[in-house]
C-alpha cells in the first residue's frame, strides 16, 4: 500500500490526469471536487499529502489551507498548492499561509510527481 494522496480539484479532467500520474507511481489517490466541505474531507481521509487547487467552487483553497494550518491534526500536513492564476501575488499568498509547495498550471506531470514524492519523504 502506497501513501495516500488527497486531491481537491474541481476540474474533472485535471483530477483524472493527476490521478493517473500518481496512481501509476503506486500512490493511493482520493479526490474531492468542492471547497465547502474540503476541510472535513481532509480530516476524515487523513492523507499523507494534500494536493489543493486554489479556485474551487464554494470556498477558496487559501481559506481551506488556513483552516488546516490552524488545526492541530492537520497542522503539519504537507500541502501542494496548484493554481491557474499564475500571478506573483498568488505565490506569496500560498507561502504566507504555509503551503509546502506551490505550482502554477499548466504543470509538467513529472514536476507534480516529483513534488508529491518530495513531500512524502522529508
Amino acid at each position, binding site marked *: 500500500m502506497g501513501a495516500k494522496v488527497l486531491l481537491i480539484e*474541481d*476540474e474533472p*479532467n*485535471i483530477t*483524472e*490526469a*493527476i490521478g*493517473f*500520474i500518481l496512481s*501509476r507511481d503506486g500512490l493511493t489517490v482520493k479526490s474531492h471536487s468542492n471547497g465547502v466541505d474540503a476541510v472535513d474531507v481532509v480530516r476524515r481521509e487523513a492523507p499523507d499529502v494534500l494536493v489543493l487547487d486554489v*479556485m474551487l*467552487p464554494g470556498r*477558496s483553497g487559501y481559506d481551506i489551507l488556513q483552516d488546516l494550518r490552524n488545526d492541530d491534526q492537520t497542522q503539519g500536513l504537507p500541502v501542494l498548492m496548484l493554481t*491557474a*492564476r*499564475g*500571478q506573483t501575488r*498568488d505565490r506569496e499568498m500560498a507561502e504566507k499561509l504555509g503551503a509546502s509547495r506551490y505550482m*502554477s*498550471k*499548466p*504543470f*509538467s*506531470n*513529472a514536476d507534480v510527481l516529483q513534488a508529491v514524492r518530495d513531500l512524502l519523504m522529508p
Partner: protein
Amino acid sequence: MSILNLLIAVCLGYVVFLFSVAFAADRAARRGRGAWLRSPIVYTLSLSIYCTAWTFYGAVGFAARSGLEFVTIYLGPTLVMIGWWGLLRKMVRIGRSQRITSIADMISSRYGKSNLLAVIVTLIAVIGTTPYIALQLQSVTLSINAFAQVDLPGDQVSETGTTGFLIAAGLALFTVLFGTRNLDVNERHHGVVMAIAVEAVIKLCALLAVGVFVVWGLGGGPADILARVDASDIARWEVSNSRWIGLTMLSAAAFLCLPRMFQVMVVENQDESHLRTAAWAFPTYLMLMSLFVIPIAVMGLDLLPEDSNPDLFVLTLPLMHGQDGLAIFSFLGGFSSATSMVIVAAIALSTMVSNHIVMPVWLRMTGGTAMMSGDVRSVALLARRLSIAAVVFLGYLYFRLSGGGTALAAIGLIAFVGVAQFLPALLGGLIWRGATRSGALAGVSIGFVTWAYCLFLPSFGPDVLISAEVMQAGPWGIGWLRPYALFGTEGIDNVVHAVLWSLSLNVAGFVGVSLLSFPTPVERLQGAQFVNIFDHSGTSGGWNAGMAQSEDLLIMAQRIMGPDEARKLFARSAQLQGLPGFLPEPSPEFIELLERELSGSVGAATAHAMISQIIGGANVSVEDLLAVADETAQIMEYSSQLEAKSNELADTARQLREVNDKLTKLSVQKDAFLSQISHELRTPMTSIRSFSEILRDTQGLDAGAQAKYAGIIHDETLRLTRLLDDLLDLSVLESGTVVLNPGRARLGDLLDRAIDATGGLDARLRILREAAREDIVVDTDLDRLVQVFINLIANCRKYCDAPQPELRIDVTQRDDTVEVVFADNGTGVPEELQSIIFEKFVRVGETKAGGAGLGLAICREIMTRLRGEIVCLPKPQGGGFLVSFPVAGGLQAAGENVAD
C-alpha cells in the same frame, strides 16, 4: 338765415371759443401762471361732467315719465360728496401719492399692479362707456333735428348719421389736441379741465334760463307751476321704495366708479383741499341743475303735443314759443354737457387702453429694447391718440347701430350698473387690507358677467343678442336663470334687479375669494399703503419729530447694519453736527449718508423706501415699491442661484463618488477577471498539457485510455477556441466594426431557435411562454438577437437556484418597440452586482458555471447595435432581464455607419 344755420354758426363759434379757452389755459399752466386754474371752483365745476346730456335733457324726460325718481340721480353723488368726504379724500390722496392715472390703474395698483385686473377693468369701462358716448352723440343729433324740424316741419331729417359723425370727429379732434398735448406723469390736462369748467357754467346757466323762462314766461310763477304739478301725472306717480333706494345707491356708486368721474375727481385734482370746497359746492350745483326739472317737465307735458319727446322739452319749449335765442342757448347747454362728457371719457378711457393694453403689448413685442430711447414717449402718445379716436368711433358705431331707439335714461342707467361693478374692489381695497387680487378679479368678473347677462345684453331688445325664448323661459328652459328674474326674483324693476344681483354676487365673490386667497408681497405693501394712506403720508416737522425720527432710523439701521455699526455711524454723524449724544438730526446730508450705507445691505430702492417711510413727507411711490419688490426678487433669485450652485456641487460630488466607487469596483472586478481569464485559459491548457504528456510518456497505454485522453485534449482545445471567440466577438462589437445582417422573422420562431440551441425543452428548466403574444414579425439582425436570447436562457440554466427552475418569457409590444422579459424564479442577480452586471468579466459568484463573464457584456453590445437595450430588472423575487428593441430596426443606417 334759418335757425338751423344760425345754430350751426353759433355752435362753431362756441367750439372755437372752447378751443381758445383750452389753449389759453394750457399755455398759462405751462408757463407756470394762472393760479385761477388751480381754484377749487374750477375743480368743482369740472366735477359737473357727471351731468351729461343725459342729465341735461334726460332728467326732464325722466321726470315726465316717472316723476320725482330723477332726483335719485342727483341724490347719490350728493350723499357721496357730503357723507363720504373722508373716503374721497383717501382716494385723492392715494391717487396723488401713487401717481394714479385712471380707475383701472387705481384698482390694479392696489392689488399688486396686476395688469390682468387693469385689463379687465379697462374692458368693462370701455363696454360700459361706449353706449354712454353714443348717448351723447344721439342727444346732440336729436337736438339738432329738433331745430331742423322747426325749419322744415314734417320733413324727415335723414342726415342723422352725418351729423353724428361730424360731431364725433370734432370731439375726437378736440380730445386729441388737448388731451395728448403732453405726456405728463400726473396726467393733468389744464386746458381740458378749464374748457369743461366753462361748459359746466354754460349748461347750468342754460338750464336755469330755460327754467326761469318756463316758470315765469310760460307759467304764472311758482304757485301756478305747483298747481300744475299737482294736477299732472307727476304727482300721482307711485314711488317704489326699492327703486328709489336702488337708484340712489347706483348713482352714488357710479359717481365714484365712472372712469370720467375718476379722471376729474382724482387724476386731475390739483390740491386735496379742493375737495372741501367741492363737498358743498358740487351738491349745490346739482341742486341748481335739478331745480327746474319738474317745472319744465310739467309745462312740457301741458303745453306740447302728446307725441313730443320729453327728453327734448328743454329745447322744444322755447322753440315752440319763438324764443330762438333761448333755444340756441339751451342747445349750447346740452351740447356742452355732451361734449364735455365725451372728451373726458375719451381721455380717461384712452389712458387706460393705452397704458394697460396697447403699451404692454407693444413693449412685449419689442422686447423692451426701446426702453432706453425716446421711442416710448412717441409710441405712448400715438397709442393715446389712436385710443381716443377708437373710443369715440366705437361710441359713434354704437350710436349708428342702436338706431337711437332707446330712451336716454335707460342707456344711462345700464352704463351706471356696469361701472358700479368696480365699487366693491375699489372700496374694499381702500378699507380692507385682506382684500386680494384674486378676490378683486373674481368680484369684478362675476359682477360684470351678471350685469351683461341681466341688463346689458337684454337691453338690445329681444332676439338681438338674447333670444326672446331665453328671456321668457330662461336658457335651456331653466326658469331661475331668466335674465330678468334671476333665482326666481320676479316682479322687481329690471335695473334694481340687475343692481341687486350683480353687486351681491360681486361682493360675495370679492370677499369670498379674498378670504380664501393669499396676497403677494407687493399686494401686501400696496394694501397697507392704500388702507393706511393717512397714517404715513402726513407731513411732520419740528425738532421733536426730528429726534423721534432719528431714533426710529437708528432702530431700523441697527436691524440692518448690526447694532454696533449703526450706533457708530449715528454717533459720528452727531459729532459732526456738533450734537451731544449719539442721535444726529435727520438733516438731508445725514439721510443721504444713511441711505447710502443701508443700500449697501438691502439695495438702493429698499433703503430709500424704508427711510422715506420713517421720515415721512415723501411718500413711497408705486415705482419705489416695485423697485423694492424687484430687489427682493433679485436677492431671492441670487440666493436661489447660490442654493442651486451648492446643490449642483453636492450633486457633482455625489456623482464623482459614485463613479469612483464604480471604478474601484470595476478595477477589482478586472483584477478578478485577469485571474479568471488566466484560470479559464490555463485550465484547458493544463488538461491538454497533462494528457499530451501522458500520451507521450506512458508506455503501453491501452487503446481505450488513449482514445479517451485524445478526446479530452480535443474538447479542451474547443473550449479554448470558444473563449477566444467570445473575447474577439466582444471586441468587435465594442469597436463598432460589426456588420449586421438585417432580416425578418416571427419573434416566436426566434425564441424557439434560442431554446433549441440551449438544449431544448427538458425537465431541468420549465420555460413558460404565451405563443399568441409572440406573434410579432421583427426586422433586425436575427442571429444577433437569437444570440442574446441564447445567452439569457443559458444563464438561467446555469444560475437559477430555485429547486424547480422556471423561466417566464413575456413578450409585450409598445408602439414600435418590442419588450421581451426573461424572468426566472431564482434569487436573481445580487443587488450589489446589478449596476455592473453588464460590464465585462463580471460574474455572479465564483462558481464554475461556465463562461468567463462575457455573455451579458456581449448581449449589451449587441442590443446597442440593434438600437435596443437590455436591462436588469431589480425584482424582489426572481432574476430578470428586459430586452427591448424596435420592431423595425432600421439597421441600414447602423450598417452604413459600421460598414467601412
